[in-house]
């Protein structure tokens, strides 16, 4: 069961009308290493992960990733809200407008729709946790690209917050892996 909390995890204060950034941000919505991929990856892996620590962690980080999807979509929505067709075209969003006007859609900046092929699961705790750690590093790198592309100070604040969350999540998945390794070691010894 999930409960919706009618608030953002981190305040979003967009001041400019940076439509190019709106397009780039789609990578963290419907792109391969985006927040939606992260949420679905973790919430899907939790059923077959063996340790209770990792079951809790995948549930909790998967849930937090949904809050990050909301931060990203809020930024895209606010950056594009009220833009003219000419402005959208100039920012490379003309194709998005042609298909669905101003509606949001989980796709990457090139319009390639989100696909479950971006994620994996093997019911092997070492393989799955390494996938999760890699995912956090790829998302961290993506946020750094976005920080280099962004101008809006409010958007940058939110991007810095989201990037740091990847660092923390990597640490926690690493610890979950250490716990799995300790259990495997204990099995061998006794």
């Amino acid at each position, binding site marked *: 069961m999930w*409960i*919706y909390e009618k608030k*953002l995890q981190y305040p979003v204060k967009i001041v400019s009308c940076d439509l190019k950034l709106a397009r780039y941000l789609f990578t963290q919505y419907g792109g391969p290493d985006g927040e939606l991929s992260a949420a679905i990856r973790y919430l899907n892996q939790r059923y077959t992960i063996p340790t209770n620590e990792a079951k809790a962690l995948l549930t909790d980080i998967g849930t937090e990733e949904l809050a990050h999807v909301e931060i990203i979509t809020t930024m895209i929505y606010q950056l594009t809200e009220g833009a003219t067709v000419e402005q959208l075209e100039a920012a490379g969003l003309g194709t998005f407008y042609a298909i669905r006007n101003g509606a949001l859609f989980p796709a990457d900046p090139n319009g390639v729709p989100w696909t479950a092929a971006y994620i994996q699961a093997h019911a092997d705790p070492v393989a799955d946790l390494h996938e999760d750690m890699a995912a956090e590093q790829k998302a961290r790198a993506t946020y750094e690209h976005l920080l280099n592309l962004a101008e809006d100070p409010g958007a940058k604040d939110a991007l810095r917050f989201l990037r740091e969350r990847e660092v923390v*999540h990597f640490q926690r998945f690493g610890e979950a892996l250490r716990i799995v390794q300790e259990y495997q070691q204990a099995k061998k010894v006794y």
Partner: protein
Amino acid sequence: MGHERVHLLKKIQEVEFAAVELQLFLDTHPQDQRALMEFNHYSRELMMLKQQFEMQYGPLLNFGFSPSQYPWRWIEGPWPWERQY
């Protein structure tokens, strides 16, 4: 919307963020008593702040976790993704 509402909301975001961080920490450190004590402390503070917020600005949670005044206040804007939020 009002400055006071934004201020109270920010306070909730701050306390809840510490609780999120402690929750993830406790998932991989279930025997850390200091982290657990802090988590329980922030959990209580968060409950009080949310109650205070909800009495003035309406429910924060759906499905029975927040009571509502009349008329049904859940549908009131602004929603979190809106500029006025």
